[in-house]
């Protein structure tokens, strides 16, 4: 009896995972299947929210929140604006021929098989985070460590990056990639502002 209870407790995260995963998969299929392009974007919203939910189930709060902020709050808004303002009519129906369906199904199935095979056959390193049942805010990793690594301070402390131990990849922080990404973002922002500038109109010749 006790172990039945234990089994039910242990299985609860699996149940939640199945629910969330099935919801995400169904919504992803919905993205592909609907002939209406705006509804396709709405299905995509739910698929992305489902992915964020999967991250939250794994205890990765930061990644889940980032997924919501960037994908739903940014990318999807852009997608829906583009889709809504360029559709040639409210219910434009995309007609997909059966040849396209067959090719897409074959490619999709092959991709799923490759990914599933690769995922199952990889020897994933066991981390402490495998069991999320005892996870509270106090023992969950905070983003402080992530921030410090972005500043170049390795997890074992600043002294670990000195001397010969500093050449070990485990002791290097992520300062250089962080700087590169920051400069990249700055370039992108400048480019976007330039593209969106108000263009001076040439004097009209009547």
């Amino acid at each position, binding site marked *: 009896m006790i172990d039945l209870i234990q089994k039910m407790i242990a299985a609860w995260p699996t149940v939640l995972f199945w629910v969330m995963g099935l919801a995400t998969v169904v919504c992803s299929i919905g993205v592909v299947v609907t002939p209406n392009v*705006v509804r396709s974007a709405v299905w995509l919203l739910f698929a992305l929210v489902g992915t964020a939910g999967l991250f939250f189930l794994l205890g990765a*709060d930061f990644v889940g*929140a980032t997924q919501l*902020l960037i994908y*739903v709050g940014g990318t999807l808004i852009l997608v829906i604006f583009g889709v809504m303002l360029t559709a040639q009519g409210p219910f434009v129906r995309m007609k997909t021929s059966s040849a396209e369906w067959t090719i897409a199904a074959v490619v999709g199935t092959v991709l799923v098989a490759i990914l599933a095979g690769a995922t199952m056959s990889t020897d994933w390193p066991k981390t402490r985070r495998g069991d999320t049942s005892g996870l509270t805010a106090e023992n969950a990793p*905070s983003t402080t460590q992530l921030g410090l690594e972005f500043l170049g301070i390795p997890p074992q402390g600043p002294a670990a990056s000195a001397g010969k131990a500093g050449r070990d990849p485990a002791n290097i922080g992520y300062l250089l990639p962080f700087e590169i990404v920051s400069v990249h973002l700055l370039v992108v922002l400048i480019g976007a502002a330039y593209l969106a500038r108000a263009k001076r109109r040439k004097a009209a010749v009547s």
Partner: protein
Amino acid sequence: MFASLADIWQWFREVAWPNLIGPFLASLVIMLFFQFQAIIFVWAERKVSGRIQDRLGPTRTGGKFGWLQTIADGIKLLLKEDLIPTDADRPLFRLAPYIVLMGSYAAFLVIPFSDGWVAQNMNVAVFFMLAVMSVEVFGVIMAGYASGSKWALFGGMREAAQVVSYEVPMALNLVPAVMAAGTMNMNTVGRMQAEGVWNWMCFHDPFTFFASIVYIVCATASVKRAPFDLAEAESELVAGFHTEYSGFRWLIFFMAEYASMLAVAWIAVTMFWGGWSGPLPLTKWFGWWIDTNGDGVGDVPNILAKAAGLLNFIVKGYFLIFVMMWIRWTLPRIRIDQVMQMCLKYLLPISCFLLLGSALWPLLVTTELGGKIGAVVAAGVTLLIVGVGIVTTPPSAAHGRRERVY
């Protein structure tokens, strides 16, 4: 399956309660709580707007103060005809209000109502709150598009642009508080402000003080509240994105708006204004503190103290809501291009400046060189302000006024 009653009790305690019934009850409590607030706020809005406009507001339904006005409004809305326009995209039309509601509701998951009374104690609470409130925009766009009406579409587009733009200074203004606290966990931030009014984050340095004020401005714009309510625009776009919604669907939008207002007000209270530790030390007066580490000094509040903290929290949140209502009925609405200008040209640079100042503040107060630089800069800025004030005062301002010609 269950051998005895004890097994049922054990199953309940270990499986059903923490995984099923407990979260369900917590969600239900939060949902009922903010729906109840909506009832209070609708009445309060009508009374406050009435008083500001020098009239009384509802005085007939339910006695002298019109207590039951909201119930009457609710009954009216429930009995209205449920109309869906012919050109509307029906599933999206039906779905949109609930997406907006869920976006506002999810922000309540991380708000600490008192010490430890938080639905989900996340280490990235502030970030999570910002992330889920950005889901609301999608519901509004969908409502605008799916209504099949050009007014609704314009309103939806404007609103999306406004909310998405104002999220940036809103987030930037929370960062000084996060930097001062060192953590995004709102329960911890609340605990840090526990010992008195001078511990509040808004008094930590002048930059967080101004950040608290600018945050409230950006948050008001982000929840599309006047003077930034072009999305609703009662006299310009009929009703913006919720033009075609009537009856119960409109009620959902309305409830979501009040829920968002309350969520951002409570975020401001938690991050800047002390959380559950009010101007009056109610937690000390009404509850003793439990000593957990045996040093003779209480360090964890007991349940009465927590309830007193909850009272503090609610009063401060409601005060902030009152301020939002006050501003709504005092200031005229600003145009959409003025809204966007204000965000991108004024509030965003101000927020960046406050962020920079708040980041440099520890250097100013703790290092010697920083102290010297700080003193020079403070003196220089004071002289500059005084000088500019003297130079630009028009000479005729102090002399007599011209007769007003009507």
